[in-house]
């Protein structure tokens, strides 16, 4: 009896999980399908699936009209650059907060998180002016800095949560054996936290890759990443959904594949410390 209930529950949760997963993935799936339809077929009502006019024309049009490799390269450099720089700052910060907390550490963590709640548009003009005056506008360096600062609270929070799970006694033992602070962080803490750092890195790359407000506002030509590439295919007048879908598919494909391969790390990092 107990076994039957357990199987039924398992089946129920499996079906529920698949339904939710499909629901979440459906917009992406529909975008991919639409990218292979003609413009007329893309907007057909009722929506067409089996009877749709399939074509590869959208991809060849999008490729011909835009310099995709340049946008792609910018996205890679900006997302990896901002992540690596963020980790270099966040690892020592999270270490100090996790292992030598002060009276205000919790407040500091909350304050850092609160900066994520500020609407980006509120600082549009100051950011724009700073970037212009410092020569950072439309540069990869500028975007690496901007995205690093934007995602730093998330990186620090994730690493802090992960570091908190590492027993302080291990670090203490290393210290007693004569390890310097640098050696303690570099050779004891970091190797132990590699899974957490990897998942943080993965999530941050995804966040930086998908960021659209600043990457479109603070660039024109040289540093424009794939978010700007997508934006160039939306049209105020005329049918554009199929081409826009093709551009979107080309933009999300790399990060989708990376996320697929790294999903175990990602889930582990996001749920770490959630259940004790």
């Amino acid at each position: 009896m107990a076994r039957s209930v357990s199987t039924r529950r398992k089946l129920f949760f499996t079906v529920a999980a698949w339904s939710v997963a499909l629901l979440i993935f459906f917009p992406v799936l529909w975008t991919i399908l639409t990218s292979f339809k003609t413009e007329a077929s893309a907007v057909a009502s009722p929506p067409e699936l089996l009877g749709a006019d399939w074509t590869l024309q959208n991809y060849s049009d999008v490729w011909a009209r835009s310099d995709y490799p340049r946008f792609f390269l910018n996205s890679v450099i900006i997302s990896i650059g901002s992540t690596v720089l963020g980790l270099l700052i966040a690892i020592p910060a999270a270490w100090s907060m996790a292992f030598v907390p002060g009276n205000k550490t919790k407040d500091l963590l909350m304050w850092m998180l609160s900066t994520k709640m500020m609407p980006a548009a509120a600082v549009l003009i100051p950011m724009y002016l700073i970037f212009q005056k410092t020569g950072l506008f439309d540069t990869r360096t500028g975007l690496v800095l901007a995205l690093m600062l934007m995602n730093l609270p998330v990186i620090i929070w994730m690493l802090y949560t992960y570091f908190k799970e590492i027993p302080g006694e291990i670090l203490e033992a290393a210290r007693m054996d004569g390890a310097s602070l640098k050696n303690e962080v570099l050779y004891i803490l970091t190797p132990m936290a590699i899974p957490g750092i990897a998942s943080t890195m993965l999530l941050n790359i995804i966040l930086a890759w998908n960021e659209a407000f600043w990457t479109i506002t603070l660039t024109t030509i040289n540093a424009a990443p794939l978010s700007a590439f997508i934006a160039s295919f939306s049209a105020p007048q005329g049918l554009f959904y199929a081409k826009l879908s093709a551009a979107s598919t080309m933009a999300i494909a790399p990060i989708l594949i990376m996320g697929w391969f790294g999903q175990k790390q990602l889930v582990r990092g996001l749920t770490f410390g959630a259940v004790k």
Partner: protein
Amino acid sequence: MNMTLRALLGATAMLTLAGLASAETTITVATVNNGDMVRMQGLMDDFYAKNPDIKVEWVTLEENVLRQNVTTDIATGGGQYDVMTIGTYEVPIWGKQGWLASLNDLPADYDVDDILPAIRGGLTVDGNLLAAPFYGESSMVMYRKDLMDAAGLKMPDAPTWADIEKAAAAMTDKSKEQYGICLRGKAGWGENMAFLTAMSNSFGARWFDENWVPQFDQPEWKATLDFYLNLMTQYGPPGASNNGFNENLTLFQQGKCGMWIDATVAASFVTGKDSTVADKVGFALAPDNGLGKRGNWLWAWSLAIPTSSQKQDAAKTFINWATNKDYLALVASKEGWANVPPGTRTSLYANAEYAKVPFAKMTIDSINSADPTKPTVKPVPYVGVQFVAIPEFAGMGTSVGELFSAALAGQSTADDALAAAQALVTDEMTSAGYIK
């Protein structure tokens, strides 16, 4: 001369040549993604052949993103763009701020007098042409000739709103998903409010009186909104409060609309290859109510140079090429007359070949019948047919558009929407200092 000296001289000559070759000016052009602009990007070989020393970099963005980016850039004097694609709403506002360079010194062969007077007037501030029109548009009625024939009706070339209502009733058959009329309902100053403001002109309504006092509490606005809501509720498609240009275009192309009143540029889409009703479409002027004003708007996407640009000469050379009569001839030779950017030059409409394009006459008649300086029946203190050319309008227009869109969705009545609009606009105008 020994070998070393020769080599050095040769290297110097090569470096000099390389230096000359690299004395190229690169200009950045910000633009929207539409058919005419994409076509221009495909014809750049002609520009480069004539101007080998200028390179053009394109920043193509969605309309609202483009507006935000170029506004931020020009307001901060950023100088990131050398040529901006802007609309007739921005030109007078930015012109008064001194943000746009004058184009009065374009070469004589540019023939500035050839630009359509209505369009040119909207792009000129204090005698300075501040933007060159790339394409212009008005609005008109596009209707299904076959459905009108089946209903035993004939669409006049210059219909009244009563004609439109009668035709809409006759062509509606909801059981076949066939709706008499499709109009914009999606909220936005450039969406439903572009249509409703233009429509209100033909009902004698206005946004403000001569003292900038909002007029939504006047009977003309009530007549406009009541008529629109009744028309759309009875004969419009379901979910019309979410429909903008592209949604209505899709419905019309799929044969679900008897009529569609929208931008004249839509004519090439509804008669194009993606349309299932391409050979059944007729055109008429936007309707009136016998008050001397039609419900059509006037808009032009134009190319302008911000004063913050460091490369104004090269930018002017590009604008001259892109909006010159020769460019229209170039497009015609490569892609046919139907694909020439419409609504900018008188000479285009005098061309016998272009006159054969089915929507050419109705487009020029629509453009000519719009007057941005006298948009409605009563006098107004502002310029603009479907907008009010003041900086506050974009925000107010969108807020009022949301109220009217909610009324179309059945979430409020016309009276409630108008009362809320009156209160909202009065507050905004008082805060902005227009109302003392």
